[in-house]
């Protein structure tokens, strides 16, 4: 082995602490060489080892009759009936997207797709969840445009529809934008593949793109916070190749069809190293690899570089001897490089050769399972009380909400994201039944009569103000979005984006949010089957808001239950299911109209939320619901406006009467109480709907809001408490549409930048 002295500096450059290095010495019983140090460094990075988060993630409920595969594999899977499983996962690509937004986001999509098709599932839907700084800065618009076009390019090119997602804007993300991507695939339940390296003597094959020096130490980078210098020490950026990935995808599904594999794992972060260690460690075996056999794109690559490269579009396979020729033949058919690079051994070692020479030899378990685990100190931040204190009496109430609604609709966080999703081919494959623009996206599963609804949600301001509640609210909102679309929630994937876990306040946010998510998931009986943690989202000491994103999937049993958010016909009656409360804390209204991000977030009553969701599902199944839309950012008026505006071809109007009932007017109109759903029903069904809701034992509050109209305006009358004249507001639907649809494009055009 070429000997480089391992100096304290070298250890530090590899992001390893003194303690961690001691642990390495114990595992090895000797000093590591440079290659081995590199392997430990990436595998023990936060990104790969989850060393700060793992102990807490145990709180998530992960079991349930529907779970086919829980956390621990490339992706999770739930049973959707008819012998099929839905395989899904979400992942972050935050740091690479900040450095190079187009390629960073594109390769993020590539990575999550591989996670799905390594399980043998055909990817059928992508979603994305994005966070950027406000659009008045050219750098932020540049990042937004780059990220969106990167996602668009990769997803469109490989032919998987991008059918939904969410974006919010807050300057806290200016130096740490978030790019979370979700993918879902379908597989026959009994054909699920796993990342196993079982069977001593089995062959290890490498397929896909040739290895270059891309993104070496990407994993350690993703585990490091940024400072101004990191823009200069730009690492080798990875470039995506969606066409090659398409070939890889088809080849992998063909392996499955021909039953050629024992196990398969994609090479994501930490490339060849992590894929081989994880496969061996999961199976209790060892792996021996010859880096000399790895197809390479560049000359003179060292074993260190080959092992740590993060070149995209590569897979590691394990096949029984005798089947490798068939594997190679499939690869040839699809025109992708492939090579036998090693074999499965029985000694639990990851042994790397270069020809005859052994260049690294480490117990696979030591790297994977043996990674450090920290129970890092946590404490609520001192500023928490200041954040939560909100003296409403010091805020003048509205006397009229006409202008506030227009302003809120134009706030980029609330405004239509059409500018974004029009760049995504959300229809390719002809399965998208509900396109972006409703509460959840819906794809049909051909041949089953069923469909899947999916959504991603998370409100980081709520999480900042109360991370426990914020976590629960995200789960509740995701479930509500599915239910509004006619879906029964089945499973969750999450992406937990937080700051520096070495800071107790950040760790506290993390732990509280995880608990909030866990409790809500338990209560809704939707287990967490996969997820991802992204820590160190911090620049120059400033952390992002705690941003857990929930991806949720539900099944719609019958096509006729598929429901959308927009009003359908004039004359229909509009109802509110749920209660308006004085929930102004942490709202978009406070931010937009009062420049405050303060207060306690809305209070979530899990039991009531569940009853309301059950009620909506029942009404949908009875066929009584014309439209259902949940209230989220912007509150009741924004929700009503969206119900009118979002009809794909013929926007409708509405006449609404509200009664103030001791609430502040701003809270009534723009408060963000959860557990509220605006539905419209045919007026002839109104009595049945009422009766049905009453049968639910009075747990489901319901009130009449008004009527859908064919006029081109929305009329809202608020009956004030005794003696005061009512407040009347009227908006031409066209004006609302202008604000809502044109806000993003106009902000992006005016501030045009690189």
């Amino acid at each position, binding site marked *: 082995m070429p000997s480089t002295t391992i100096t304290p500096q070298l250890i530090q450059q590899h992001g390893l602490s003194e303690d961690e290095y001691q642990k390495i010495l114990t595992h090895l019983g000797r000093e590591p060489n440079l290659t081995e140090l590199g392997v430990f460094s990436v595998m023990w990075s936060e990104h790969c080892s989850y060393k700060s988060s793992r102990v807490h993630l145990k709180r998530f409920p992960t079991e349930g009759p529907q779970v086919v595969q829980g956390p621990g594999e490339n992706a999770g899977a739930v049973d959707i009936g008819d012998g099929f499983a839905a395989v899904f996962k979400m992942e972050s690509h935050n740091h690479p997207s900040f450095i190079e937004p187009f390629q960073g986001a594109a390769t993020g999509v590539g990575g999550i797709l591989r996670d799905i098709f390594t399980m043998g599932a055909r990817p059928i839907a992508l979603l994305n969840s994005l966070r950027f700084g406000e659009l008045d800065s050219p750098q932020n618009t540049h990042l937004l445009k780059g990220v969106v*076009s990167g996602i*668009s*390019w990769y997803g*469109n*090119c*490989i*032919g998987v529809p991008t059918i939904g997602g969410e974006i919010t804007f807050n300057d806290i993300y200016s130096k740490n934008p978030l790019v979370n991507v979700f993918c879902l695939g379908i597989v026959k339940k009994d054909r699920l593949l796993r990342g196993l390296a079982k069977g001593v003597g089995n062959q290890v094959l490498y397929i896909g793109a040739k290895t270059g020096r891309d993104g070496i130490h990407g994993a350690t980078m993703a585990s490091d916070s940024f400072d101004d210098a990191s823009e200069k020490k730009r690492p080798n950026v990875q470039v995506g*190749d*969606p*066409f*090659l990935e*398409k070939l890889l995808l088809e080849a992998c599904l063909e392996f499955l069809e021909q039953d050629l594999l024992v196990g398969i794992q994609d090479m994501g972060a930490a490339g060849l190293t992590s894929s081989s260690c994880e496969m061996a460690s999961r199976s209790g075996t060892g792996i021996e690899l010859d880096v000399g056999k790895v197809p390479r794109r560049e000359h003179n690559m060292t074993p260190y570089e080959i092992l740590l490269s993060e070149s995209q579009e590569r897979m590691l396979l394990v096949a029984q001897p005798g089947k490798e020729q068939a594997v190679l033949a499939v690869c040839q058919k699809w025109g992708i490089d492939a090579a036998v690079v090693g074999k499965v051994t029985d000694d639990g070692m990851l042994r790397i050769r270069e020809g005859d020479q052994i260049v690294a030899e480490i117990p696979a378990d030591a790297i994977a399972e043996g990674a450090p685990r920290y129970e890092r100190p946590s404490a609520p931040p001192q500023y928490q009380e200041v954040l939560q204190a909100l003296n409403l009496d010091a805020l003048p109430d509205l006397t009229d909400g006409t202008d506030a609604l227009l302003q809120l609709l134009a706030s980029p966080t609330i405004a239509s994201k059409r500018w974004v*999703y*029009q*760049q*995504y*081919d*959300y*229809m*390719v494959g*002809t399965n998208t*039944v509900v396109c972006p623009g409703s509460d959840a996206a819906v794809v*049909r599963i051909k041949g089953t009569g069923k469909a899947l609804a999916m959504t991603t949600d998370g409100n980081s301001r709520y999480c900042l103000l109360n991370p426990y509640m914020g976590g629960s609210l995200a789960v509740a909102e995701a479930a509500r979005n599915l239910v509004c679309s006619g879906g029964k929630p089945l499973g969750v994937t999450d992406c937990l984006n937080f700051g520096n876990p070495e800071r107790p306040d950040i760790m506290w946010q993390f732990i509280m949010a995880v608990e909030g998510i866990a409790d809500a998931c338990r209560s809704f009986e939707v287990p967490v089957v996969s997820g991802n943690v992204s820590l160190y989202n911090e620049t120059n000491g400033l952390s992002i808001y705690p941003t857990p994103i929930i991806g949720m999937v539900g099944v719609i049993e019958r*096509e006729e239950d598929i429901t959308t958010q927009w009003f359908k016909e004039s004359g229909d009656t509009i109802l509110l299911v749920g209660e308006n409360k004085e929930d102004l804390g942490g709202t978009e209204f406070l931010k937009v109209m009062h420049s405050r991000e303060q207060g306690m977030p809305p209070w979530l009553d899990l039991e009531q939320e569940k009853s309301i969701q059950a009620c909506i599902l029942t009404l949908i199944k009875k066929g009584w619901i014309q439209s259902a839309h949940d209230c989220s950012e912007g509150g009741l008026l924004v929700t009503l406006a969206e119900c009118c505006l979002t009809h*794909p071809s013929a926007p409708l109007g509405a006449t609404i009467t509200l009664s103030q009932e001791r609430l502040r007017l701003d809270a009534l109109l723009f408060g963000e109480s959860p557990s509220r759903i605006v539905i419209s029903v045919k007026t002839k069904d109104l009595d049945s709907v009422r009766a049905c809701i009453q049968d639910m034992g009075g747990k489901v509050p319901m009130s009449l809001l008004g009527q859908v109209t064919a006029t081109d305006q929305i009329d809202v009358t608020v009956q004030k408490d005794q003696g005061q004249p009512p407040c009347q507001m009227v908006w031409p639907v066209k004006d609302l549409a202008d604000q809502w649809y044109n806000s993003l494009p106009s902000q992006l055009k005016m501030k045009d930048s690189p």
Partner: protein
Amino acid sequence: MGQSSHLIWHQETSVQGMDAILLPGGFSYGDYLRTGSIARFSPIMEAVIQFANQGGLVLGICNGFQILLETGLLPGAMLRNTELSFICKETYIRVENANTPFTKSCEVGKVLKLPIAHADGNYFTNPVDLSALQANAQIVFRYCDRDGIVTPSSNPNGSIDNIAGIQNAQGNVLGLMPHPERCAEPIFSNQDGRLIFESMLTSLIGQIPLPAK
């Protein structure tokens, strides 16, 4: 639509036994270099060209249209959309020529609502070819507004003369950018795309297929 279909692998060299050939959308070869430029040289394309030259029905949708342009079966070329980015949305197109195997079931002036999904759909051809297209009624579809009026603002990509689809002089090869196959089933509220496939069937077997259940 009750017809049997058969996927042909790009490495094959024969299209024997086919009544019509459909080049679908997609990003063949990632659309690297130029849209359709590499796929145009797939081994199967020789047979497709021959089939077309013998009068066989060939329909190219989106990337399929782009490939047909690269082969020269249809005149012209695609430029990047004026807005540069990929656009996925519903558009309206007007049937300009109903006397083709692909539009038989429509009337001239019929407005179809079909989605587009492309980054390079800005059709271009030189003035001489454009006049020929116009003179021979080879412009089969133009982007229009909801009421069938061909306006600049209903042109989603900058295409010359609002062209959404053209056919060859013989009238057996059609290319169009919008996707009829994305709105041809009852589960999608819009089924305008069926008209194109129905027209093809009518011209092939002389009868209108039963509507889908």
